[in-house]
């Protein structure tokens, strides 16, 4: 087990370095420098700026510096917010994004798990059809389209909820639901499929044959085994939540990391873009690592791979 986690850990470190390198190189490939604005800058000014941001150094020296700073949690300098580092800017947006993401994830679990379970237990019933229909629809309709429908119904027609902003519980409801729809559909699908698979196993027949009440068969024998694939999709789900948050945070005017990233792209703030990208890739990679380890904990078969 320890050997497995260590091996995975080194792999993750490698991935993170590769991700940083790709992002770093991509940002250097962008045509026109970061000082390419509408207003032409004097050559002396550009030289000074390049010096300040270390852009006058050779590529690999810059990358080395960047990695070194990264090790200390410093994601570099923003090119538009002159007074603040990228780390500071991200940390400012993070609580909002995290609150939104965690709320959405909990909603997704609360909807997806029971929906998938009910569908599997009552296969080919009306509940199953409704569950499959909902998971198909919400897996294909983008969160921001759903968000727009929510705004049209609850803000424009019914005047129940604010269209956006951040600070009160009422402002979290719609973005969280819009963000939760896709992962909820995904969880429902995987739960249903894996429950159906487990229900077909011999040990379930044994459990029933020895006269266990159905409730225990389902909770103790089926659900615990069926949850393993559901755990493994947590990593991809984080990626969904992040991708979704770019658009949802814009739609609902939430000053989170996703919105910062988009602003960074619009302002061509390469420092900020690079920092947020690496931050996101790290978050996903670490989440995948944790999931891998969890997976090996709950399913001993994996370790012998």
């Amino acid at each position, binding site marked *: 087990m320890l050997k497995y986690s260590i091996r995975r850990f080194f792999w993750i470190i490698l991935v993170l370095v590769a991700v940083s390198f790709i992002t770093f190189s991509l940002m250097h*490939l962008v045509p026109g420098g970061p000082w390419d604005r509408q207003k032409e800058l004097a050559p002396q000014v550009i030289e000074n700026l390049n010096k300040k941001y270390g852009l006058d150094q050779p590529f690999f020296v810059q990358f080395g510096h960047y990695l070194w700073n990264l090790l200390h949690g410093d994601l570099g300098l923003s090119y538009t917010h002159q007074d603040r580092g990228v780390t500071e800017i991200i940390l400012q947006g993070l609580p909002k994004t995290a609150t939104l993401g965690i709320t959405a994830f909990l909603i997704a679990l609360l909807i997806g798990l029971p929906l998938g379970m009910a569908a599997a237990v009552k296969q080919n019933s009306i509940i199953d059809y409704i569950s499959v229909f909902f998971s198909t629809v919400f897996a294909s309709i*983008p969160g921001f*389209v759903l968000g727009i429908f929510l705004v049209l119904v609850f803000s424009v027609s019914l005047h129940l909820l604010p269209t956006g902003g951040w600070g009160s519980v009422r402002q979290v409801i719609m973005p969280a639901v819009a963000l939760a729809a896709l992962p909820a559909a995904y969880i429902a699908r995987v739960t249903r499929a894996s429950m159906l698979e487990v229900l077909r196993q011999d040990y379930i027949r044994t459990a029933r044959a020895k006269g266990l009440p159905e409730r225990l068969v389902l909770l103790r024998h089926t659900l615990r085994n069926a949850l393993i694939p559901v755990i493994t999709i947590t990593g991809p789900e984080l990626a969904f939540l992040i991708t979704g948050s770019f658009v949802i945070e814009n739609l609902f005017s939430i000053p989170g990391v996703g919105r910062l990233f988009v602003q960074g792209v619009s302002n061509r703030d390469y420092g900020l873009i690079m920092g947020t990208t690496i931050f996101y890739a790290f978050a996903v990679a670490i989440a995948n690592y944790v999931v891998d380890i969890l997976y090996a904990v709950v399913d001993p078969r994996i370790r012998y791979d």
Partner: protein
Amino acid sequence: MSVIAETVRPHHTLWGDAFTRLKRNRVALAGGIIILLVALGAIIVPFVSPYKFDQQDLNVVLHSPSHGHLMGTDGLGRDVFTRLFYGARTSLMVGVFAQVICLLIGLPIGAFSAYASQRVDNLIMRFVDVVFAFPDLLLIILIRAILGGSIYMIFLAIGLVSWVNIARLVRGQILSLKQRDFATAARAMGGSSTYITLRHLLPNSLGPVIVYVTFGIPRAIFAEAALSYIGIGIKPPTPSWGTMIANGYENIFAAPYLVLIPAVAVGVLMLAFTFLGDGLRDALDPRLRR
């Protein structure tokens, strides 16, 4: 000849069977028909619409749907119906061409990786893993920043990010097909690995690839709509459903239909592709074959 032809069992091909099964699946069929209708509308809109997509008429700003403007007009007095179908052009083009680029990159690399030496295969797959580590929309945005904002570059950006899925799929398919008897037979008869790959393995792995591409199209459509919505996708005045939603959102209280119409369009088109994809998967799944 004709006597023999009549007594022989009717000829069944994989694709013929799959098509018969697909025709029986009403939901998939509905999806396919919706896609065809949208595509048809997108093709003929310049010839049937009395308006141009960028034709502004400041006398009819924000008019609700009426006889003259079936879906009303937007904040600049442009006809929403016309723009919707021009937007469908953008969406369908992005969806299809992004997948074509995915295939052009992913198929050869996946097939090559399956036949390459262990070390090269490992190297390619580790690279694929690294690309997977990025949330895809993020990487698309980064690449788009390098390539610029033209619509072709958006195809390319999406393709450059999403090919890894196809490569992985094709590699897995070929690795498993390589072990089958027909591949062994072809090898025994002296077929070179290039010949066997091109003639036997690739065609046999096409089923799952087609299904994957069908699901990839709505993802590309979403990516474009999302990019355009946040203002870093298709540049105006080229209509895109994403920009239409973003512009409509400014007037959501005065003219809710302006955001509702393109939002519904994105949702319906993506659903249609998903339904078609589900149907294709069922139709092409050999385990269901009778």
